[in-house]
Structures are given as C-alpha cells and as structure tokens.
C-alpha cells in the first residue's frame, strides 16, 4: 500500500481531490499497484455508494423518484445527526456511547414538556437542547475532570440517562391527551409547530433533510475552516503537543462532548416529531448506527480522521442500502447484516489497508 502523502488537512470541502503538488509527489512515489490500492482506499466508499444507487435506480423504478430520495434522506437524518455528534467526540480522540440514550431522553422530554407541561413546541425545543448540552457537560465532567476513560464514562451515562428518562415519565410513553394517573386528561399535546420539524418542507425539501444538510455544512466549516476545528483535531492528534502549543485541551474536549450532546438532542427532536409521541423506546437503536456512520466517515476518501462530509456520506450509504434492500424484498434483518459488512469494510480501509498512522478513533485516547 502506498504511503499517503496527502494526509494534511483537506484543502477543499473534503470531497475535492488533493492539490496538484501533492498529486505530483504521489505520482513520483507510488508505484502503479500502490496507487491502485490507494485509490481503492480513497474512493472505495464513494464508488460503492454510486454503484448501489445505480443498481437500485435501474432495477427499482420507485427508487429513482424525488420523493424516495427525500424520503431516504429524511429517514436517515436523525441517525446522521447523531453520527455527526459522535464524529465531534472522535475529533478529540474520544467517543460518545450515550448519543442514543440522549436522543431517547430528548424524545421523552420534548413530549413531557408539551403534553404534561402544556408548552408550545418552541419551548420544548429549548428545553431539549439545554438538556442535551447538560448531558454533554456531564459526560465531559466524567471524562475530563474525573478522568474516567471515555468509553466507560459514556457507557455509564447511557444507563443513567435512560434510567433518568424512565423515572421522569414513570416508565410510560407520553402521547397527546393521554389519561394521567389522577384520572384527568393531560393538558397539552404535540403542537403543530413541533410536528413541523418532521412534516414541514422548505421548498420541496423536508425540514429534517434541511437540518441534516445545514448541520453538515456547519460542522465542515467549523472543523476544516476555523481555528477551533483545527484545535479540536490537534487535541485528537496529540493532546500533549496541543497543550504545549497553548491549546486549552480540557476546554476543547469539554466543548466536543457538549457539541455531541447537543447534536444527539437534535436527533431526538426529529425522532419525536416523526413519532408524534414520547415513545420510551425511541432512540434505543440509534447508537450503533450513529457510531457506524461516523466510523465510515473516517475511512471515506482516505481522509483517515473524523470529518463531516464523510459522516454524511456514511449515513446516505446506509439509507440507500436499507431502502434498496427493502424495495428488492430482502427481509428487514438483512439490513443489519448489510450495515455490518459496510462497517467492516470501513474499518479495513481505515486500519488495515491504509498506511496512515493517524486514524483517530474511538477510545484511542484515555488520559
């Protein structure tokens, strides 16, 4: 396999090929075979996605409709957004396993605020976002201050958050106009403005897809174009060197976990609006998909580190696969197998076939 001389920060949006100078060095250094395998590492996932889309588009007329495209993106948006959250935690060399629980917490809290608290959707959104930030801050407290390894801290938080949610809602799903314990009817309901988060469109584009896209662009810009993003990556690449370079490592790690908690709660808001009630089991399956999506993101384009567009592409790939498999009549349980294979290939690209020494992934840094 070739060494990959272009692993400096991507100059463009992450989808742009490397600049000419680096390509020239690449040509000189790499033998033909090396370049082929480097190309596979770099473009493999894009190619797989394109091939799958092509295959389903040709074989399934329903697949190539605009409705289906938006439907797929809307379906995957919560996963993608939670995956972006995990991606942020991964930039500082950490991981967050509490995203699924956080999203589920957000679902119940949103429902509770509107139905029991009789508040409008805007208030629910505010409460949920504050809650997500608090969860992130608590994760950061455990990891940064109490110095519990990230994997264990967030795993523990996963239980704590799920338990706290069940305590708050008495273990019940909260729906509009439900009957309360004292025999009265709940005062509030899921308001229209809240349901707009799922059902609304901006132009022809569903709101969740817009939010997904905007967050991806925002995070891409933040990570690749601002000094804060560079500092986050520096913490992930070598936290001691970053600290000696004057970067406030602990602040950045804290910010990363808070950002992750916020994104997980946004994912929860979209789920709540989709379900239309405070389903206590919502979010349970989100974690594995979110982690998978962010890991795929690391290997996409051979970038070798967590990044926004790669994560988004990973989400799209999973959406295409799940939708396509369903359309061609494969049972739902084939989806998990497909996801597993995709993730396996992603990990092989990241760790085995790529010579890059800088894969920053999950739990690789504990202080």
């Amino acid at each position: 396999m070739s060494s990959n001389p272009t692993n400096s920060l991507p100059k463009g949006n992450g989808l742009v090929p490397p600049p000419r100078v680096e390509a020239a060095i690449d040509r000189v250094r790499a033998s033909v075979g090396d370049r082929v395998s480097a190309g596979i590492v770099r473009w493999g996932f894009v190619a797989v996605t394109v091939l799958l889309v092509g295959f389903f588009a040709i074989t399934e007329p329903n697949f190539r409709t605009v409705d289906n495209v938006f439907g797929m993106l809307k379906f995957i948006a919560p996963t993608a957004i939670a995956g972006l959250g995990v991606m942020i935690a991964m930039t500082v060399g950490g991981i967050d396993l509490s995203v699924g629980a956080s999203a589920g917490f957000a679902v119940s809290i949103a429902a509770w605020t509107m139905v029991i608290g009789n508040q409008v959707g805007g208030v629910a959104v505010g409460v949920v976002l504050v809650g997500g930030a608090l969860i992130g801050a608590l994760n950061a407290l455990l990891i940064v201050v109490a110095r519990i390894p990230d994997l264990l801290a967030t795993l523990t938080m996963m239980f704590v958050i799920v338990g706290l949610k069940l305590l708050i809602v008495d273990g019940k799903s909260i729906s509009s106009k439900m009957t309360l314990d004292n025999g009265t009817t709940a005062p509030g309901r899921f308001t229209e403005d809240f349901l707009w988060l799922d059902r609304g469109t901006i132009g022809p584009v569903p709101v969740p897809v817009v939010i997904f896209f905007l967050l991806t662009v925002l995070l891409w810009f933040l990570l690749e174009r601002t000094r804060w993003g560079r500092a986050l990556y520096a913490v992930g690449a070598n936290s001691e060197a970053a600290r000696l370079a004057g970067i406030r490592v602990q602040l950045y790690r804290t910010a990363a976990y808070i950002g992750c908690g916020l994104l997980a709660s946004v994912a929860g808001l979209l789920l709540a609006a989709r379900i239309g009630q405070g389903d206590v089991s919502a979010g349970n399956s989100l974690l594995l998909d979110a982690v998978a999506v962010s890991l795929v993101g690391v290997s996409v384009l051979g970038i070798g580190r967590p990044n926004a567009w790669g994560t988004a592409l990973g989400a799209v790939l999973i959406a295409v696969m799940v939708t396509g498999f369903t359309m061609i009549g494969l049972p739902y349980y084939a989806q998990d197998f497909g996801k597993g294979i995709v993730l396996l290939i992603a990990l092989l690209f990241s760790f085995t076939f790529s010579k890059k020494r800088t894969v920053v992934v999950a739990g690789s840094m504990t202080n």
Partner: protein
Amino acid sequence: MTSAPLTTEGDARTAVVSLSGVSFSYGSNVVLRDVNLQFANGSITALLGANGAGKSTLIKALSGANPRYSGSISIAGESVTLSSPTAARNLGISAVHQKVADGIVPGLTVAENVLLDDLAGGFRGLLRNSRRDFAEARAALALLGLDWSDRVLAQDARDLRISDAQLVTLARALRSTPQLLILDEPTSALTSAEADRLFEVLRALRADGLAIVYVSHRFGEIEALADSVVVLRDGTVQSHTERPFAWHEILHDMLGRATELSRQREQTDRGETVVATVRDVVLFPESAPVSLEIRGGEVLGILGLIGAGKTELAELLGGLAQPVAGSLELGGAAYAPRRPSDAIDRGVVLVPEDRQRQAILPGWSVAHNISVPFLAESSRLGTLRGGIENDRARAVVADLDVVTESIDTPIDDLSGGNQQKVIVGRWLSADPKLAVLDEPFRGVDIAARRGIGDRLTQLARSGSAAVVLSSDVDEILEVSDRIVVLVAGSVALDGYSDTLDRATIVEAFLGSTSASDLEQDAEQHAGLAATVTPPESAHA
C-alpha cells in the same frame, strides 16, 4: 582502552556471548554502530551511557527484541540468530527489563508469575497443577536464596512489594538457566537495603559462573559490583575497562570527548538585561533552592544529568508545572504561568524534551505543525487563512534550512533532525522573549544541531534570551555563551564559556566524584530518581 579485557586476568573466564560488528538503525537513524563486545562467564559487565547512547537498543538486540540487527552474535563460539525473546532465552540469554511492572502480571499468583514462561509455551504443560506449580516456583526462588511460604506463592502478584516483584522477575529470568543475564536498571525502584540484597544475589550468581550485563546510571553501584565497564556513546563502544575503574576517563567517554566534530564558539556574548529571574526555586522536594538570572543577549546552556533538575526547570519556565517553592520573574514582573498558554502569552516558548510525544502532530503537514500555536494569528474572524499559515511555514523552512519536499509534506516523512528544526523554528517564529529548549539535539544530526545553534545565537543577539538544557558537554559548549551546571537540583557552576575550560565544567558536572564520595553521590542520585516525577504523569 577499547581492547577486549578478557585476557588480563588469565583466569578461567571465557567469553560466553560475543558481539561482532553489531549495528542497528531505525530507518536512516543509526543507533548502534559496529559494536564488538564480549561478555565473560563469572563476571559482571556494567553498561554505561547517556540517554540515546544505544544501551537499550543493544539490550534489545541481545534479548531478541530487536531481531533486525546486522552483524553477528555468537554464544559459546557458535553464531546464533536472536529472532525473538523466546529464541534468546532458549539460547541462554535472559533479560530483566527496567520496569518491574512490565514483568509482573497482576491477577495471577506469585507462583504463576514465576512460571510465566511456561504459561506462554504452547501446549507443553497445558494442564496446570497448583501443587506442582508451587514446587517449581519454590525451586526457582531457592536459586535466589528465597524461601517463600505457600501463602505468599498463592497471593496475587499485584500485592507484592516492588522489591519482591523484582525478585520474582529475576527468578523467572533464571529459570531457563541462562548463560547471560541482562539487568536493566534493576535498582531504580529499590531502597538501598533492597538493592544490597539484590547485590548479594548477583554476587552469588556470578560466583556460580553466570555472565551478567548490568545497566545502571549509578556509579556507586557499578563501583561496588562490576568487574568491567562498557561505555556507549552515540551508538559506539567508547571503552571497555577493567577494575580499578578510572572514573574520570569513563565519564569523559560517556559524556563526550572534545572531538574534531565539536567546535568552539567564535565569540562569547555577554547579556546585559535580565529577561527572567528564577528566585529560590526548589526543583525537588528535598533539594536546595536555585536562583538564576536569565539574561537577554546570550545563549545560556544548562548542563545536568538525568535527575539534576533540567527538565523540571524547563517545565517551570514553560508553564507545565508550578514550583514547589520560590518564584519566577519575567521582564521585572511576577511570572507564574499556570499552563503553557500563559507562558506563550508572556513570550516564553518551550521546545520540549520528547519531540514525538510532546511536540509533533503525527500525520499533519509541516505547515500545520508549525501553525498550531498561532491559530489565532492565522485567522480572521475565527476562519483560518491558509495564506498566513503558509507564509509562516515557508519562513520557518527557509530560516532553518529545513529539508522537506514542500510545506505540505507530512512531518513524519522528515528526518529526526529536520522534524526538530520544524519544531524549533515553529517556536522561534513567535519572536519569543525567552526560548527554552530542553534536550533539543537528541537524535539530531550535527548539521541540524549547528543550524539550530546558529539560529539561537541570532535570537540572543536580537536581545532575547535563549536557554538550552542538555546532558551533553559538547552540545552545551558548542551553543552556549554562558554555562550553568546543575547538580541534584542546585547550581554547581555558573560562568561564561570563554572563562571556563572543559575539565572545570566536567568536574562541576560530576560533583564530587572522588572514590570515597562515589557511594554518597550514588545515594543522592538514587534519592533524586525517586522524587523525579515521570513525564507520563504530566497528563493532558
């Protein structure tokens, strides 16, 4: 003095293990050069050398952990291939590594730890029987004159005192009845009473005909124990001498002789303005306070061995640690940085000791490695401007003659010397008031060393202060206007290099090294080693 010493005694000692033309390199970095050595049975050979001299590489080659060495190693006259630690052990070479913790598996019993090599040995002895295990473990420990009860053998090895754990690793190493036993700093975690006990054991083993290679920084121990001393420096054997040891010669060999490669400074500058003051700072809990004026306009070289307080002083100045007692001043005002960013804001930069761990962002380009501390200056409204970053990077590359294909090349592709130039250049590009460089020339070739030295002189002549800390006399002589020698956390010498000669510096460096004081010296050293915080604890 590089002749083989085996013939001097004319006794029954013969070479058990011989190395002939052994070399080793990591990529282009040659760490062992044409080593020819013989280790005789019934004798203890001490291996001395400063950091990076190649000691651990040599030990690893001998113990099978560095199979890619070139040259030949023969055991009892037969050429052998030491391809793995197991192979080396089967051929009669056992090693006890420096960190006792690495040799003990917590969770297993003491007996199981003694017999650990059996557990690793495939299917042979697959079924364990605790009574037989105990008997075997007791037999192994008996070689060391130990008689531990079943209760001790059955307890979790994690609960052993460190000195007992050391004995467990030693017993394990001896189980394979080695012909050559390698001990790497075996006393670093022991009290002096425990060390004495270990020495008794080693003397008994020597009497039984074992060849022992003993690595230590403690001259007192070597004086007490060794039959001959091998000095390594820059990967080559400088000398191999028998008793009685000429310590000054040995120390010269270890720390660097004036060679044609070193050069004298053309001009010795004397700084006028005081940039920073170290006032009554206590570097270690029990050392005397240090006071020092750091002046602009001169390069200050601080010389000290490991444990002398070099890195501690550098870390205080760089904001990585706070003084136990005493205070710092910078530009006439109080200076108490709580973290590196405070130091940087005040114009103090630190090139840390361990480049890979503390300075390099692996996988990042040269340009991005250079810009890390200057992200704010490289941005407008928080948005990074590649142009500003690249201008700075190009300036650094030109300033220090960094050899790199481009500023976009990953820093990992550069040689060690050029990586170091990038890091030094990064910090000097901040136009610091005070630049502190801790062992900046470790693993750096001479050309890069001169480039960095010239750049420091230039910085000093612009009125700033440059402080270089090193354990190498030649390095310090080459780059410094003023030389401060640090011994055991205190200043032993402070003067300008044109008023000092080499012998005076080495004398001060080594403190009182007359034979009668050696033991005491070693004890001080040992005491210090115990109080020095390991670098790992400076967590992020």
